[in-house]
């Protein structure tokens, strides 16, 4: 059933150039950047070992601490999907390939969560998808799965294998109990360093739209007349969706691998 949209979004990758922070280089030669195509539903910390492999011999071993990533002065939260980080921080007209700075020193304690192993990334991912299923189906779908199916979801994300992922993920796309709708839509709105998460019940209102959800989250910016306020840009999966989109449809088609809709609202 997987419609063509989730597959297309999955395949829409972000070109990125990872460079070592110049003041952390202790060799006489500057290392070349690592170029990669980042899957939108992946996590930056999954590439840590690649960074260690490429950059570690350009610095003194005793100065090598936990790896973290930064763009334009902003420490990047590895626990957000890569696509969300790009939509939050970047401008597609000037920031491609996405220049990411890799750090091995001065971990920004308090700003970033530590990530010491892939197990932590997996645990974080599973927590988010469990929360999403609590909202969508009271947790009934995820609790009905075997552990090997949980592992397959993560393996599909990690290996960037859409078919492996979606063969399990499609179970999350059925309606709650006998309805055609999720119990609530897992949706987070990112606005001015804030994250707004509220309950949106599509069965109360079959035509619940993105505009209505944004009006509830940010009533001073959005109004129910369905027009986009001036100087405001709404972005998800790198796309500006029409505000008239049904929230249920968006949730089925535009959610990240963690089953959340991550919507960025930018003011210009």
């Amino acid at each position, binding site marked *: 059933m997987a419609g063509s949209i989730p597959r297309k979004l999955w395949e829409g990758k972000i070109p990125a150039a990872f460079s070592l922070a110049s003041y952390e280089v202790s060799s006489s030669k500057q290392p070349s950047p690592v170029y990669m195509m980042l899957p939108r539903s992946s996590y930056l910390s999954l590439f840590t070992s690649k960074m260690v492999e490429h950059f570690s011999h350009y610095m003194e071993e005793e100065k090598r601490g936990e790896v973290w990533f930064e763009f334009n002065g902003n420490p990047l939260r590895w626990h957000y999907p890569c696509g969300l980080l790009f939509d939050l921080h970047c401008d597609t007209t000037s920031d491609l390939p996405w220049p990411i700075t890799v750090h091995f020193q001065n971990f920004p304690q308090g700003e970033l969560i530590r990530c010491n192993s892939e197990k932590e990334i997996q645990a974080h991912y599973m927590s988010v998808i*469990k*929360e999403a299923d609590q909202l969508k189906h009271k*947790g009934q779908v995820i609790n009905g799965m075997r552990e090997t199916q949980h592992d397959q979801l993560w393996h599909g994300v990690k290996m960037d294998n859409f078919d492996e992922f979606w063969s399990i993920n499609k179970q999350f796309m059925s309606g709650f109990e006998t309805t055609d709708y999720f119990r609530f839509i897992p949706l987070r709105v990112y*606005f001015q360093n804030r994250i707004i998460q509220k309950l949106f019940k599509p069965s109360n209102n079959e035509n619940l739209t993105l505009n209505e959800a944004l009006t509830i989250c940010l009533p*001073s910016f959005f109004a129910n007349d369905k027009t986009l306020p001036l100087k405001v840009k709404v972005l998800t999966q790198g796309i500006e969706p029409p505000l008239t989109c049904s929230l249920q449809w968006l949730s089925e088609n535009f959610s990240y691998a963690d089953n959340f809709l991550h919507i960025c609202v930018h003011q210009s």
Partner: protein
Amino acid sequence: MDQEDAKTEDDRPTKVDVLLRPAGDAPILKKKKWQVDSAKTVEWVVGFLRKLLKCEDSDSLFLYVNQAFAPSPDRDIGSLYECFGSDEKLVLHYAKTQAWG
């Protein structure tokens, strides 16, 4: 439209009643119900609990919502209450070993 406008839409309570319940073999607290500032994060609650339970640095402490998932440390208590609160409180389970996933 300035930032002040954007703030006024926040009509949620500034304090949330949080009920802390043990899971597994975690010790029971004498006082279970606490008022927590809705802007405080999960990380803050974990730190607060670690002090209450006199956890050693080496002890793990896990926090769960709906006995189902562990919210990320930077999640604010207000939004958890809004999505998962019931009977005017947010129930959080704590455990010294992983209890749910």
